[in-house]
């Protein structure tokens, strides 16, 4: 635990200036933060289980083939992996309608990271392949604050000794930890 702001800690870590405590947040962690904080905790502790019935792996890049010709993958610090379109915008694919919020926060986080760590300001685009729709996403004042709050939130979850209790929600059905959470 540290007294300093997790946001500063994250930036120091990214710039290799952190002390003994490092703090990294990946895009997937941002998604878990929105979807289920308990899942985020399990993920951060590398809790792995073989799920008896076919595991449904939730992922960011469900639709790898869509738009494949127009983007390139760029990985930064091994922490974030972004897709850049020809026009320079950062794209995130929203795999399903229930995952629009997590995909959006992840995209905003990428834009925030590019701005504060790499020093480039970019625009984003959230693609909805099933609806053949694209939505422009910009990192404004309000969005920056949202990202920074989420970073602090992630920090609180991953540094706590126990996970938040399980709460039943629709995503539980397809969660890899389903039987682990609900075996009781």
């Amino acid at each position, binding site marked *: 635990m540290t007294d300093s702001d997790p946001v500063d800690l994250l930036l120091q870590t990214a710039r290799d200036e952190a002390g003994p405590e490092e703090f990294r947040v990946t895009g997937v962690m941002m998604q878990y933060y929105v979807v289920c904080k308990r899942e985020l905790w399990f993920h951060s*502790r590398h*809790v*792995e*289980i*073989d799920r008896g019935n076919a595991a449904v792996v939730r992922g960011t890049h469900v639709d790898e083939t869509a738009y494949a010709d127009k983007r390139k993958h760029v990985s930064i610090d091994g922490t974030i992996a972004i897709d850049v379109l020809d026009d320079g915008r950062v794209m995130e694919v929203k795999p399903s309608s229930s995952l629009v919020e997590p995909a959006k926060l992840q995209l905003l986080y990428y834009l925030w990271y590019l701005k504060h760590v790499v020093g480039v300001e970019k625009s984003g685009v959230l693609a909805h392949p099933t609806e053949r729709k694209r939505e422009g996403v910009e990192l404004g004042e309000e969005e920056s604050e949202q990202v920074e709050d989420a970073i602090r939130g992630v920090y609180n979850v991953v540094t706590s*000794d126990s996970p938040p209790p399980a709460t039943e929600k629709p995503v539980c059905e397809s969660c890899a930890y389903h039987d682990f959470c609900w075996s*009781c």
Partner: protein
Amino acid sequence: MDRNYHVFSDGRLERHNDTVRLVTLDDEKKFLPIEKAEAVYLHGQIDYNTRLVSFLNKHGVALHIFGWNDYYAGSVMPKRGQTSGTTLVEQVRAYDDLEHRVDLARKFVAGSIHNMRTNVSYYNTRGHDFESVLTTLEETRDRLEETTDVAETMGVEATARRAYYSTFDDILPTGFVFDGRRYNPPDNETNSLISFGNSLVYANIISAIRATALDPAVSYLHEPGERRYSLALDIADLFKPLLADRVIFRLLNRNQLTTDDFETDLNSCLLNERGRETFSKEFEESLEETVEHPQLNRKVSYQYLLRLEAYKLKKHLLTGEEYVPFKRWW
């Protein structure tokens, strides 16, 4: 859920191209569908080599070997795909903390007593009078709360189990005496069946534990090292009444097993090949029975209950959330 395959004949088990085949002594060949297997149980005299072992390893299939005497001889376990240092550390931490260890030991015993009681009350309402045994089981349950060390907890477990076993002579048909638990080797038919049934429960739990990253050697009620997989002993106690004992009652009361299915000599009595086959078949059917799980909201097999038990324990150790032992709820 993946299946178990039992091999009763003598012969050779070998890798043949991308399959496993059994070649019996009279040169009969049989293929085992290894992709769908959880484990292979060897009951006969079987030769196998390292090629077979690495092949099973690659497919994540365990080999459980059943010898003579007390039946279970050992396992060849596949390498785990995943290991978890954190889980092992938490397991050991709980073991080292006396209060935590006793608490877990007590929970295993509380669950066992509950499940023994379920069997006894079933027969109590079907023409037997087991009121005094039910009382003893309730008393042991109460005494359990006051135990402060593992030996004491074990003692309560032993008292409860003795009372429970005392009902067997009544439940079983005439011709099958029991007269107390003896093993290594078992001295009569009933003891032989209990040994065999318990060994099957034990081996299935070893497989269930493997699916989590729990280390099977770190246990709480039983002393680590008592057996190679002592954690499986802790969990097995919870499931013996449901999985082993019900199969015994059923097979004997329906005359599906008779004294002809045993080989008896001076000081031991063991199931013969046909007896083991009958028992294993009934046991596997019982593993496939299902029950509606109140929290998972779906039907799960008895075999999957073993897996869930391992999940529950692991969850408790990693998160600090309470471990509630398996207590038959139906």
